[in-house]
C-alpha cells in the first residue's frame, strides 16, 4: 500500500467555499451530503488517511531571505482549495478512487501525486 496526495485546485471547486458560485442552498446541501458519503466510504474501506479544506487567504514565505508576502498567490483557479491523503495500491488505483470525489461534479480539478518515501 502506498500513500497518495489529492490536491483540489480552484476556489470554485472548494466544497466549503461555495459563496461565489451559483449553487443554491439546496445544491450546496446536496454537495455537502456527497462529501459526507464519499469520506465515510473512504474511511470504512481504510482508504482515508486524512485531509482538510483550506481557506483562500494565507501568506507566502520565500527563499533564504524569508520574504513574506500576502496571498492570493496565483490565479484563483489555481489556488489549492484542500487536500486529502489516501492509501492505494498504485497510481492507477489512486486515480480510480479520486474519480468518486464530489469536487469533480462541480467541475473541479484533482492533482493526484504519489508521496515520495525518503
Amino acid at each position: 500500500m502506498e500513500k497518495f496526495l489529492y490536491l483540489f485546485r480552484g476556489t470554485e471547486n472548494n466544497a466549503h467555499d461555495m459563496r461565489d458560485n451559483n449553487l443554491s442552498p439546496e445544491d450546496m446541501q446536496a454537495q455537502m451530503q456527497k462529501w459526507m458519503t464519499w469520506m465515510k466510504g473512504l474511511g470504512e474501506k481504510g482508504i482515508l488517511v486524512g485531509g482538510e479544506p483550506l481557506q483562500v487567504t494565507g501568506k507566502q514565505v520565500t527563499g533564504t531571505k524569508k520574504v513574506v508576502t500576502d496571498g492570493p498567490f496565483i490565479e484563483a483557479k489555481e489556488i489549492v482549495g484542500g487536500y486529502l491523503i489516501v492509501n492505494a495500491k498504485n497510481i492507477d488505483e489512486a486515480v480510480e478512487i479520486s474519480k468518486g470525489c464530489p469536487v469533480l461534479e462541480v467541475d473541479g480539478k484533482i492533482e493526484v501525486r504519489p508521496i515520495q518515501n525518503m
Partner: protein
Amino acid sequence: MSSGKNSDVHKIVDHLFRREAGKMVSVLTRIFGFKNIEQAEDVVQDTILKALEVWKFGKVPENPEAWLYHAAKNKAIDMLRRQQLKYKIDSDISYLLKSEYTLAPALNEMFTENEIKDSQLRMMFACCNASFTQEAQITLILKTLCGLSAKEIGKAFLSNEETIQKRIYRTREKIREENITLDYPGANAMTQRTDAVLKTLYLLFNEGYHSSHPEKLIREDLCEEAMRLCLLLIENPKTNLPQTNALLALMCYHVSRFGARLDDKGLIVLLKDQDRNQWNKILIEKGNEYLNYSAIGKMVHDFHIEAAIASAHANTTSYENTDWKMILNLYDTLLNRTNNPMVAINRAVVLGEAEGCHKAITELEKLKGFTENCYYNTSLAEMYMRVGDKETAKKIFGKALELTSSNAEIELIRRKMKMCS
C-alpha cells in the same frame, strides 16, 4: 400530567434543560461513542451552565433549543479538533470527524430533528442492553435520556445518590468491557430488543404509577417520561410494533385517572369511589386510539391484555356497570401467561366482584408467601369486610398497616379499620 403554570418561567426553563439535556447527551454520545458518554455529559453540563449564565442577565432566547444545540455543537467540535476524547471514537460516523471537510456538516446533521430522535432511539436500545441489570437499565434511561441527576434518581427510587452513582459507575465499566455501542440491533433482533426496551419502560412507568413515594410530582414525572419515550418508539416505523401501541394505550388509561386518584387532602381514592368525571377524557380517547393500532397482526402480548383490562375500566361510566365477567376472563388469560403473583392477587379481587367475595377469600388464601405483602393483606381484609366478618378484616388490616410506610396508604387503612369497629 404536569399542571405547569405559565407564569413560572423558572420552571419552564428547568423543564427545558432536563428535556434538552437528554436529547443532547444522546446525540453527543452517538458522535463520541458510548465509551465517551461521560464527556458527552460534560459538554451538556457546560452548555447548560453557559446558558444559565447568559440568559439570567437577559432574556431567554426565542428559540432556546437552537441556542443550546449551537453551543453544544461548538463545544463538541472544539473537543474533536483538539482530540480531547478519552477513548477512541467507535461511532458509525467516526470517519466524518477526522477532517474539516466533514466535521462541522456531520455535527450539524446530527442535531437535526430526525437525527436527534434517531440518537435517542439508539440510546434507548443501548441502555436496555441485556448486559445491564433491570435496575441499571432504568437508571441509565433516567440519567441519559431523561436528564435526571443521580440525586434525583435516588430520590425517585427512595434510594440515595451514592447508590445510584455506584450503579452508574458499574454500567460505565460494562460499556467499556463489553464494548457496547449505540448501533441499531439487526433486523433479526429488532423485535426482541424492542421488547426489552418496552419492558423497561413498563417498569419505569409502574415505578411512577404504583410506587408509594410520598411525592406525587416525582411519580407523575416518571410516568410522563415513560410515555414520552414510548411515543418516540411509535414514531419510528422500526419500533412501532403492536405491543408498543398496547403499552402506550395502557399508560394513557392509567394516567387518565391521575386527577381522581387522590382527594383534596391527598388521600387515596379507590377505583370504586373515584369520580369518573375527573378522568381525563382526552387520554382515554388516546388510549382507545393506540389500542386500536395495537390490534394489527396476530401477535398477542401481555401488554394487549393489560391494556384491554385498563380499557374496560376507562370506558365504563360507573363502577356498577363494570363488566367483571369479561375482566375476569382477561385476568385468567394474563395469569396463565405470566404466572405473576401480583396478577393473581388482582385476579382474586376481580373474582370477588364477578362471583362473590367468598370465592375471592378462598382464592386469596390459596396464594402462598404474601403474608408480608401490604396489598395482599388489604385485598383480603376488604373481602372479609364485605362478607361481614369485621373482626377478621380488622385484624388483617392491622397487619397491613405494619407493612407500609406511605402516609396515604396508612391513612386509607386507618379509615377502613374504623369502618370495621
